[in-house]
């Protein structure tokens, strides 16, 4: 019994990836033959981005139990970072490519060093940790901006201009997506250290604050922040429209596989048991703070990646689209699909966008506003009929975990017999 699952999973992985590739080819064919027009292919790309975003939130909230409204903040960070890299590149400025990548790498090195250093001390307070990591981040990006931007930028330009134009564009896009995801990850790490310790409710409120702050900063990118090309509250234009179906599909596939493998490992057990009972988790030898931080950072990296994909499909970014009200979207998808169900999120993410932004956009003239009546009604009815989420406890075989499934807590107190 102990050895069987391994073989089982290999077969399931092959089937999952196989079916995925078939879907990939079918959609690519429909796009190439124009059977899927640009409106509907855009809806599918959007659906995939939102699904990646929601999978990240499901890891944080559904699997780890940390209620978060911060997902749109990280989505925005990923979108603006990636967009800035490609915008600069297409306007003859390679510094974005150089700074984000070298800054993120230096930060990573710094973090490893800081972690090793702090381990030598006894129970360092979270504020001390936060201060160290913040200084490490500032130091890394200062070096990246002041020292590395020029030479690395020139180097990147020399190398990339030697390559065919199409290939160099793909590489820059790859770096942009990576950079957006990395920055979201770094910010979530810094934010998570002091805030995750507060516990779920306070954490939720803090993440709402975070999303609001990000939005305010985006409104003022050209005044408070030194990014005139982002044009503050007027919205950023001129982002190259580089998102294609292969980028969308393989990003989603990568996210699903990474998340699935995390959840199948002992780290996944730690993440889930923290949701069930933090103090019990501590007693069986789980490092609760680390488990929370890991789920939060990985979930935020997914959000950053989703932002980069969305930005290069829209080719236009506006701070208003990252208003905190929007942060309820991934939350609705995650709850709707089932907390702790990857299959549910995969399904609901697409359905949500296809329904809300596709079908309900096609209402007859004069009835357009019914959109905002129909979808809350659908939500209400679904929540009443399937309170455990659309998929309930079902998972696709590949995603099915050996982990405990999420159950409604039975509140029955054991009868206490007086001694």
């Amino acid at each position, binding site marked *: 019994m*102990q050895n069987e699952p391994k073989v089982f999973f290999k077969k399931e992985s092959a089937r999952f990836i196989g079916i995925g590739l078939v879907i990939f080819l079918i959609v690519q064919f429909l796009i190439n033959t124009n059977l899927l027009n640009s409106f509907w292919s855009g809806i599918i790309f959007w659906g995939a981005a939102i699904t990646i975003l929601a999978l990240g939130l499901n890891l944080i909230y559904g699997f780890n139990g940390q209620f978060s409204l911060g997902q749109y903040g990280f989505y925005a960070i990923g979108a603006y970072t990636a967009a800035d890299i490609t915008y600069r590149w297409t306007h003859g400025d390679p510094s974005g490519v150089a700074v984000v990548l070298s800054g993120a790498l230096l930060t990573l090195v710094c973090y490893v060093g800081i972690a090793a250093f702090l381990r030598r001390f*006894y*129970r360092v307070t979270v504020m001390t940790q936060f201060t160290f990591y913040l200084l490490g981040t500032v130091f890394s990006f200062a070096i990246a901006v002041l020292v590395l931007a020029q030479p690395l930028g020139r180097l990147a330009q020399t190398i990339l201009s030697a390559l065919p134009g199409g290939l160099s564009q793909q590489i820059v896009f790859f770096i942009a997506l990576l950079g957006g995801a990395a920055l979201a990850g770094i910010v979530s790490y810094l934010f998570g250290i002091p805030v995750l310790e507060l516990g779920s409710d306070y954490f939720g409120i803090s993440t709402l604050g975070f999303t609001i702050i990000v939005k305010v900063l985006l409104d003022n990118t050209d005044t408070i922040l030194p990014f005139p090309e982002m044009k503050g509250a007027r919205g950023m234009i001129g982002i190259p429209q580089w998102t294609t179906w292969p980028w969308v599909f393989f990003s989603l596939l990568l996210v699903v596989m990474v998340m699935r493998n995390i959840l199948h490992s*002992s780290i996944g*057990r*730690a993440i889930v*048991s923290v949701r*069930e*009972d933090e*103090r*019990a*988790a*501590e*007693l*069986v*030898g*789980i*490092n609760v703070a680390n488990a929370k931080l890991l789920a939060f950072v990985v979930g935020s990296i997914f959000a950053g990646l989703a932002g980069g994909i969305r930005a290069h499909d829209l080719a236009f970014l506006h701070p208003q689209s990252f208003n905190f009200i929007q942060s309820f979207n991934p939350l609705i998808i995650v709850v709707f699909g089932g907390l702790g169900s990857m299959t549910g999120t995969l399904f609901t993410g697409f359905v949500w966008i296809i329904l809300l932004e596709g079908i309900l956009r096609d209402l007859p003239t004069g009835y357009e506003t019914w959109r905002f009546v129909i979808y809350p009604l659908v939500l209400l009815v679904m929540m009443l009929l399937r309170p455990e989420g659309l998929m309930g406890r079902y998972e696709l075989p590949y995603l099915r975990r050996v982990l*405990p499934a*999420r*159950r*409604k*807590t*039975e*509140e*029955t107190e*054991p*009868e*206490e*017999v*007086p*001694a």
Partner: protein
Amino acid sequence: MALLEIKNLIVAYGAIRALHGISFHVNEGEIVTLIGANGAGKSTTLRTISGLQSAESGQISYNNQDITRAEASAIVQRGLIHVPEGRRIFAPLTVRENLEMGAFTRKNKQEVADSMEHVFHLFPRLKERMEQTGGTLSGGEQQMLAVARALMAKPRLLLMDEPSMGLAPILVEEIFDIIQEINKQGVTILLVEQNAHMALSVANRGYVIEIGAIELEGEAHDLAENPRVRTAYLGGG
């Protein structure tokens, strides 16, 4: 050589001291009991040993290593396992899942499977309820599950915080039988109890703790005869 040695342990909650410098030790293979009234500092002592609470000063050494500053997760890895007051099982998880979580720090699947078998042998009632969620078990069964989960970690030293609390007398007997059985199989036990009578009947040695300080210590049967212990903890006579 003592397996666990506590020296001058001082623990405070904010400005209020709960432990005023206590010292005691537990030798390998022993059952040692820490008895005392409600609020004396028994749970605080155990929580500090297992790293859930930090010490202000003093030293905790386990297996000749200083663990005063170690993380709770690192302490579990060394086989020092805490069965807390109030059980703290995973209520939404099944009995089997709870036991699997108990083996979180162990990598060898075969050994974990063997431990599971061993645990079900000790607690046949848990085997019958394998797929039932922890929250639906009776108080006695939850206590058994808490002990069983601790055994899944392959403990060398078990800290048990009032395992008899809230249980019917017949279950108290059963729990204490199991404690002795576990001890016979080579696990050292530090047992915290308000039920001094039962605790002293199974322990080798004991300490009496009052308001954060050790007041008496000795062989368990001597303590049971001690007039002070008899009046304060054994209900008069």
